[in-house]
């Protein structure tokens, strides 16, 4: 059960990072931390329930996270190329 508390704590820290930080790469790292926290919760629940479905879901989360990192970092590189900055405040052309 302690694992689930740890997972909730890490998820909140990641959410705070997404809201607080302005550098797009650091925001992305915080998203990764949130995904990791959910994985920890999945593994803990799998053990509590006594079946492996949670671990399978955590495995799929890892795969999706890897794909997401690839695409997200490619988008960040593209934005950096056009705007010379990775600040999330810089990308405001779709604002209005």
């Amino acid at each position, binding site marked *: *059960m*302690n*694992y689930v*508390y*740890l997972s*909730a*704590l*890490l998820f*909140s*820290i*990641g*959410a*705070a990072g997404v*809201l*607080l*930080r*302005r*550098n797009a*790469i*650091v925001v*992305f*790292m915080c998203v*990764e*931390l949130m995904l*990791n926290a959910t*994985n*920890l919760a999945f*593994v*803990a629940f*799998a*053990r*509590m*329930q*006594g079946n*492996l479905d949670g*671990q*399978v879901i*955590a*495995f*799929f989360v*890892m*795969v*999706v*996270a*890897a*794909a*997401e*990192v*690839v*695409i997200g*970092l*490619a988008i*960040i*590189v*593209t934005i*950096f*190329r056009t705007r010379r900055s*990775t*600040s999330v*405040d810089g990308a405001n052309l779709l604002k209005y």
Partner: protein
Amino acid sequence: MSTATALTTLAAGTDTGTGEAVVFWLLAPIAVLASFGMLFSKKAVHSALMLAATMLCLAVLYIAQDAPFLGVVQVVVYTGAVMMLFLFVLMLVGVDSGDSLVETLRGQRVAAVLAALGFGALLIFSLGDAVVTNTGLDEANSDGNVQDLANLIFSRYVFAFEVTSALLITAALGAMILAHRERHEHRPNQRELSEQRFRSGIHPAPLPGPGVYARHNAVDTPALLPDGSPAEVSLSRVLIARGDVRRSPGAELAVPGDDENAHLSGGDDG
């Protein structure tokens, strides 16, 4: 006999064994501290290293929870591939891309901290009401964790597995398309670059090397201009951004009223 069975049922019913509790209480504070470090460190590279520490702690915690396959995958995929990608992009973007600390939305920081605290409290206090069963994975892992996971993935979850392959191919294609840059104008050759350099007239010659006319010729020591002031252009931009610039020892001679300067000139007189 009956005491032995009672002990085993008691051991199966408890939350964690002693060794696992030690591992948890050793690694969980490290993970939390490292994630706080990731949140508060100013440089993105430090954030990346802190995140890698958190992920390693989580990998050990997976292994402690009867998920050795996921623990190994966590090390290989997250701390290996994903963090390598992060560091690679940091290298592309430049280490000097710091975070601006100016608040663009008023009160956003306070609101964000409040929202995160409230969300965490909601999660943690709602967990207190949860009914916990601790079945354990001994039965589910009877053939070994990897074999049983494979049995599940290739039977019940086989469709999700196939869809995952489509997702990975799409991600690879998307990354290639996003990172590809079409060159519309022709690439300037050396002659055109040289002509452009002379036309702009700022630096027809190459930039000064570090340490010229200074007492060191190390790369972190700026060259000295004829008036004795350090030349910023002689240093690498990355070194300036990292704050690794050594003050040129020769530059002190040009500072009037400096103690060392007075001492040196006095020595000259004597």
